[in-house]
């Protein structure tokens, strides 16, 4: 450290001497050249070139070109935020091309914003969070979204289950839409990609005896962003702010996750290889009671799957069914990257292979990803970047929710060996004494005989052309295709509880999506006086063609052959569901930068969406809608006198509106469905067309500041936002008198207000030891300000699980829950039935009983580096917010919860009798003694909302990683290995929580439920995220 300082000092002194010693040296001349980034060879715009002798300054244009008056021997300094400043002494030549190297410390200072536009963080009028690709890749999670938990202030990330290939949903800054999609847009290298999860509801032909529940509750399908190789990610920029959403239009109204992929590095070819092994164990499992046998009212009856019988005989043999069911999950991952290039072109080839076996028998996830990225410089003016990625993933998942393996496992009699799931003749063995198959499947039968598997092939690629027409004009075109096809099968064995009534059921579907999109952009940068003007005009389009072809068959001939050919032909039915839309966006943005400390930005965007077109009458509704944004930044530390410890200070303010089209196509006109009834024909669809539907609008305001202290050792970024979304688009129940069950309407206002804080520090940094820490904090207040047309409550039918559902009422939160609850009199006393002595339970879904929205959320990441050893961890902290413990509800109402062990204690439920006097001034107090042992309904009729656990907090160690890098001394001794490291990573090692269930961060639906917030915070029959331990090695040649 000291040595370097002295060297710099000496250099400075030398230069000074030189300057003064030769005052008339050389002749006046102009020096010019191009400045490019060392990392990807792209020209850098806005690099400040300073002639240190004359103090004259200039900046580079869009082509990275500069021209400055300088004489031989003078020193030019090239500085650019995010890159190390470089100095050069002018020699005889007149042209100097400079490569700037990324500076490690300031890697976050250049931010990739919408459409791949790189912006100086100084000029951004909104908070932009950047997560480095390595942080994500190092956790080695198959679904990279799970690695983001805790790292982004204001992001709520919920994994559906802890199973391989499960889906994960993400919401930024709170849900803005009661019934719309609340997940952000995913963008790779400037173009949007699809992050859909297969939505089975209304897309698979139903079982003829209709006992199978298709509403996204009982099965899970991966969200398609999992097709991205985490090792290909250079960085992730999370745009939550309003201007960001203005830039992406409809789909970006919930923010955008921008992924920049790695490009090849110039120089000698290198090969990197890493390999990891991970082991997973089930963590935090609900406890079951082993005292009372199956039965009811204190009498043993082994035909029942309720545990209200007599005590188990003391001679009883118990089996550890839970341990016998789960297994150790194992997975391996191999990554290879080959890269290299020269001044003209670079290449990067990557391949990854995952093979994961989950903690549930037969659950697995296998994936290959191959990708190639090329950059090519066709001329000094024209650059081409291309990327193509192929992903193949195979998922076999297990059931979930009602009728799924977990709830069955929890209520499997402990005195019955779960491992014997078939009879000697191979048929399904029942836990019931009478052998009846009318009960939830043995979980091992379920995971071995029922199947939900799918195979997905995805091709994603784009080409980007960047053309510098002249010094001030750059034209860029990006064209991309995102194509995937999934072939999926759901199979219910003929003896399974679901398949039993239909003689076995196979549903097979082919899901195809083709998204073609493009963005054309012109960037004009012109300086007028002290004002740097930038105008970006762009035009984008996306054309999406989506179709699911599904077929169903029943009455399976050979139960061991899972094939759609293996069914009674008379039972076939099929369904084709298309969803096509075309959209355009025309966008213009002006940014004026005054002396580099004050910027003003204005943007306007006009979107066009085919989803707004009325197909009966094109002229009646315009596909276009307009919105705008404006923002300003002020670097006050550059202008005002600030104390020395404050090295940087910036204020920012921003206001924007955003429009959003309906989440589905074809909602403007009436649709029809093929009739399944005798004679066929067409029947009107349950949803009526809404010709007058208009886009949903958000108004978003954000302000904040960024401060840096002690020469950047501490950085603070605070954002406050206030978003309002009005004219909510809802597909809601209407009066049947209109001739339909559902209809899309506009109305209602949702507000999200919150604060987000990001604190970075490097408390210690010296030659051998570095300690970095990042703390983020986010608090969001979500409120439904108004409901449409006096509508009292709205619910998303997918969230109707058991007798509880996500219910939206005026004044409540979008995360509210309502359901069956204890009835009370006007004074709030429990009403007690005069005949049973038990509380009266009612179902009133308009009375909110819980709110899943947390009070605040925090993330803490820290990294310690000592010489070649690095330890880093990521903590995810949440305070408050309610969770419905549906799994406990299920166990409680079936007498399997340990909370039912007090059943022999006689008690009087405190309350008043529901005898007609309950609301008078003199209600009758309850005096009826109840001994639950003899009254199973004391437990079995408990209302759902009684299992909403209030104010759930957690601290979750998302990941911890210890890595050791081979010392440089070793690397230097040979020429083959450039670097090598070994590491050990723990994922989800611990969870400290006041939640009584297994895992509060699960979803009773899955990420495909794009309407509202879905089943987040509803824990029903989902296995918790397992703990994982991973060891691995990486080597680069």
């Amino acid at each position, binding site marked *: 450290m000291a040595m370097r300082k002295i060297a710099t000092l000496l250099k400075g002194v030398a230069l000074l001497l030189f300057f003064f010693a030769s005052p008339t040296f050389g002749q006046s001349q102009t020096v010019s050249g191009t400045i490019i980034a060392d990392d990807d060879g792209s020209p850098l715009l806005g690099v400040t070139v300073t002639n240190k002798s004359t103090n004259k300054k200039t900046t580079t244009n869009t082509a990275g070109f500069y021209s400055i008056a300088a004489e031989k021997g003078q020193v030019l300094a090239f500085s650019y935020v995010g890159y190390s400043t470089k100095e050069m002494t002018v020699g005889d030549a007149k042209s100097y091309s400079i490569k700037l190297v990324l500076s490690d410390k300031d890697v976050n200072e250049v931010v990739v914003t919408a459409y791949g536009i790189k912006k100086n963080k100084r000029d951004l009028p909104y908070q932009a969070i950047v997560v480095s690709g390595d942080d994500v890749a190092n956790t080695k999670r198959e679904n990279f979204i799970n690695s983001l938990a805790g790292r982004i202030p204001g992001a709520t990330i919920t994994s559906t289950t802890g199973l391989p290939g499960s889906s994960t949903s993400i919401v930024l800054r709170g849900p803005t839409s009661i019934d719309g999609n609340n997940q952000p847009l995913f963008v790779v290298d400037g173009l949007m990609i699809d992050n859909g999860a297969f939505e089975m509801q209304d897309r698979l032909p139903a079982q003829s005896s209709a006992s199978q529940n298709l509403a996204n509750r009982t099965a899970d399908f991966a969200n398609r962003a999992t097709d991205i190789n985490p090792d290909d990610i250079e960085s992730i920029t999370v745009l939550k702010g309003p201007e960001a959403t203005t830039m992406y239009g409809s789909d970006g109204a919930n923010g955008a996750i921008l992924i920049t992929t790695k490009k090849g590095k110039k120089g000698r070819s290198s090969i990197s290889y890493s390999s990891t092994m991970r082991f997973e164990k089930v963590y935090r499992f609900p406890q079951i009671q082993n005292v009372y046998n199956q039965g009811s009212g204190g009498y043993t009856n082994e035909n029942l799957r309720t545990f209200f019988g007599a005590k188990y005989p003391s001679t009883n043999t118990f089996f550890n069914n839970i341990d016998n069911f789960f297994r150790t999950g194992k997975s391996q991952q191999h990554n290879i990257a080959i890269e290299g290039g020269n001044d003209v072109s670079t290449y990067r080839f990557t391949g990854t292979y995952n093979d994961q076996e989950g903690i549930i028998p037969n659950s697995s996830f296998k994936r290959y990803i191959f990708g190639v990225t090329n950059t090519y410089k066709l001329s000094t003016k024209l650059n081409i970047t291309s990327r193509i990625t192929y992903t193949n993933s195979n998922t076999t998942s297990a059931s979930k929710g009602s009728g799924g393996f977990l709830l069955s496992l929890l209520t499997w009699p402990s005195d019955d060996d779960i491992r014997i799931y078939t009879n000697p003749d191979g048929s399904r063995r029942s836990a019931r004494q009478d052998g009846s198959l009318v009960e939830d499947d043995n979980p091992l039968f379920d995971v071995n005989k029922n199947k939900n598997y799918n195979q997905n092939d995805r091709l994603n690629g784009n080409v980007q052309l960047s053309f510098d027409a002249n010094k001030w004009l750059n034209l860029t075109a990006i064209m991309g295709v995102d194509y995937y096809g999934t072939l999926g099968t759901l199979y219910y064995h003929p003896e399974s509880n679901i398949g039993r009534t239909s*003689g076995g059921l196979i549903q097979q579907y082919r899901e195809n999506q083709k998204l073609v999109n493009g963005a054309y952009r012109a960037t004009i940068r012109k300086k007028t006086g002290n004002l740097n003007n930038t105008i970006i005009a762009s035009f984008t389009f996306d054309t999406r063609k989506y179709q699911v072809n599904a077929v169903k068959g029943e009455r399976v001939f050979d139960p061991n052959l899972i094939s759609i050919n293996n069914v009674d032909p*008379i039972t076939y*039915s099929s369904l084709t569901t298309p969803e096509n839309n075309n959209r355009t966006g025309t966008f213009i943005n002006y940014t004026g930068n005054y002396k580099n400390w004050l910027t003003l930005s204005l943007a306007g965007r006009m979107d066009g969406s*085919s989803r*707004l*077109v009325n197909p009966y009458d094109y002229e009646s509704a315009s596909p276009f809608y307009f919105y705008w944004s404006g923002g300003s930044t002020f670097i006050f530390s550059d202008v005002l006198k600030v104390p020395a410890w404050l090295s940087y200070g910036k204020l920012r303010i921003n206001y924007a509106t955003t429009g959003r089209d309906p989440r589905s196509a074809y909602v403007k006109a009436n649709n029809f469905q093929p009739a399944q009834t005798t004679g066929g024909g067409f029947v009107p669809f349950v949803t009526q067309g809404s010709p007058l539907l208009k886009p949903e609008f958000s108004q978003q305001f954000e302000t904040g500041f960024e401060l840096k202290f002690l020469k950047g050792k501490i950085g603070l970024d605070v954002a406050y936002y206030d978003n309002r979304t009005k004219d909510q688009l809802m597909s809601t129940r209407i009066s049947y008198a209109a*001739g339909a069950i559902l209809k899309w309407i506009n109305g209602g206002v949702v507000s999200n207000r919150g604060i987000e804080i990001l604190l970075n520090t490097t408390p210690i940094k010296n030659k051998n030891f570095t300690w970095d820490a990042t703390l983020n904090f986010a608090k969001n207040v979500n409120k439904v300000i108004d409901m449409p047309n006096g509508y009292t409550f709205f619910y998303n039918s997918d969230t109707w699980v058991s007798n509880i559902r996500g219910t939206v009422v005026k004044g409540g939160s979008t995360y509210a829950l309502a359901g069956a609850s204890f009835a009370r009199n006007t004074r709030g006393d429990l009403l007690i039935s005069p005949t049973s002595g038990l509380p009266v339970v009612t179902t009133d879904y308009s009375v909110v009983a819980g709110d899943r929205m947390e009070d605040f959320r925090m993330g803490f990441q820290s990294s310690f580096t000592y010489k070649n050893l690095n330890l880093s961890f990521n903590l995810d902290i949440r305070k408050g917010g309610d969770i419905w413990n549906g799994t406990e509800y299920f166990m409680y109402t079936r007498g399997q919860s340990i909370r039912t062990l007090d059943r022999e204690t006689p008690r009087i439920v405190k309350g008043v009798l529901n005898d007609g006097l309950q609301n008078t001034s003199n209600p009758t107090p309850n005096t009826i003694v109840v001994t639950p042992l003899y009254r199973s309904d004391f437990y079995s009729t408990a209302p759902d909302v009684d299992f909403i656990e209030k104010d759930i907090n957690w601290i979750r160690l998302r990941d911890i990683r210890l890595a050791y890098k081979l010392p440089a001394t070793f690397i230097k001794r040979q020429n083959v290995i450039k670097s090598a490291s070994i590491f050990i990573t723990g994922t989800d090692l611990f969870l400290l929580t006041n939640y009584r269930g297994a895992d509060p961060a699960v979803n009773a639906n899955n990420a495909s439920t794009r309407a509202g917030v879905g089943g987040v915070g509803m824990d029903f029959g989902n296995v918790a995220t397992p703990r994982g331990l991973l060891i691995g090695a990486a080597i680069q040649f």
Partner: protein
Amino acid sequence: MKKIFISLVLATLLLSSCKKYFDINSNPETPQNPDVTTLLTPVFSQMARSLCLDSRYMGAYVQYWHNFNSGGDAYDIHGGNPINPSGATADIWQRVYLQIGVPANLIINKGIKDQNWDYVGVAFALKAWAVQEATDYCGEMPFTEAWKDKINFPYDDQATVYRGIDSMLRMAEFYLSRTDGTVSNSSLKRADIVYGGNRSKWLKFVYGLMARRFQRLTNKAEYSADSVIKYVDLSFSSAADNFIFQNTATRNDDSNPFGLARNNFTNYRQGRYITELLDGTIFYGNPSPANRDPRLSRMLTKSFDTTTISSSTMPVANGGYRYLIPATSDPNSGNTTSTSAAFRQRVSTLYGDSIVVITNFVNNFSARVGKYIFQNNAPSILMAYHELQFIKAEAAMRKATPDRGTAYVAYLNGINAHFDFVNSLSNTASPSISAISGQERSAYLASLAVEQSQANLSISDIIMQKYIGDFGWNTMEAWCDMRRFHYLDLDPTDNNTLVYKNFRISIVSVNNLGFKFAYRFRPTGVSENDWNLTELRRIGALNQDYHTYEMWFSQP
């Protein structure tokens, strides 16, 4: 290169203004503007379904059947459907607007444009049928403003709705009588699985609906027995005219909703009154074998154990035709051990003798199992000749001077036609359900159960036979009759006896509302509580006893 690039940008910009690019918002896999022929066929199944599903609850009021495992079933004790949102009891309410009303309106609008007069006429008839059913079920309902692009709907009183039914039936008559335009048997036949495109049969159906509508008003001064007789005579001339269609029964959706596979009636078991009418208890005072109606074994079902006498489900030996008393569950309902005596004494399901638990039959479409209308592949029947004959018989008795001759002929026609009807549903594949022989029939016709003298014919005689004839398939008609007679009215032609002889209502005070009979169902809260609360309040539908408000049609 530059030129190519710029022209590419311009080309795309042009595209954005192009209608072709955006005008893709119609689902390519379903029609946006379907042909009338594709819309009509599904309506028939929806009609059958709406009537069948809600007859589960009406059936408890009229005591055709009761819920076997719930002694406190609200409908057994003349309770109402809940004010809180619930999808139950709402099949008629939903279908009149959605599955029947919407396609009927589409057929009418498109058909008038394309001169498909026959389709238009049929659509008016079906819509009239559905509205009649809905108003007789719920009373006040949105009608004049219904099907409009609105959020809130006013409710019309029943008198208005009845006038609307009248005009729809007259429109149906008008359009079905037209022969111009594109009207042809072959055109209508494409969608008409009921009458195969025969418009004269459709006209008969329309007249049958008129007869039903006018007969509802027997308590009113405006009632005209002559009109009823006139319309019955214009209507079905034999069972060949019955409104009937065959269910394909290959899967759940194309099976008879009364059938086993659909499993809608598993919890419903035959009631006391229908059993006592058929086993001889009411007509003879005891159910000895000679007193039993030959239809007993063809319409109702017997348990495994046909001998053991139990206090509630079979107090007297009647051949094992155990039944439920309203508000009393089957004491053996919880028993599922097939070998136990209690299991063998359970009241059988309506699906067939000794079928007490449905297991293998759900989704089993191939086997012809089941009894009477309770078979997967039994036809759906929505109007029958015998019902109209009973209507005519009653109307003739209600003339200022009762026309006993006409009434008696129609009465016997009705009984005979119902015997034919039962035989048409006999199931030879399932054991022991053979057709009623001529001998059995003539013995019955000569018995005490049938009024032997024209002079002694009473309305009660007619209505009790009509009640038998309506069993199951026509529960709505049976309930309308019972409401016209306020359940326990005395016979107008013989003021000493109840119309429904020996009919006993198990009624307990519902929610402290006093002892009142059920007259209507509340509009479903599922769709109405949110949008039409003001109207619900106005008509009283938010009152606990709304379901006991007497209908306009049965009031004087």
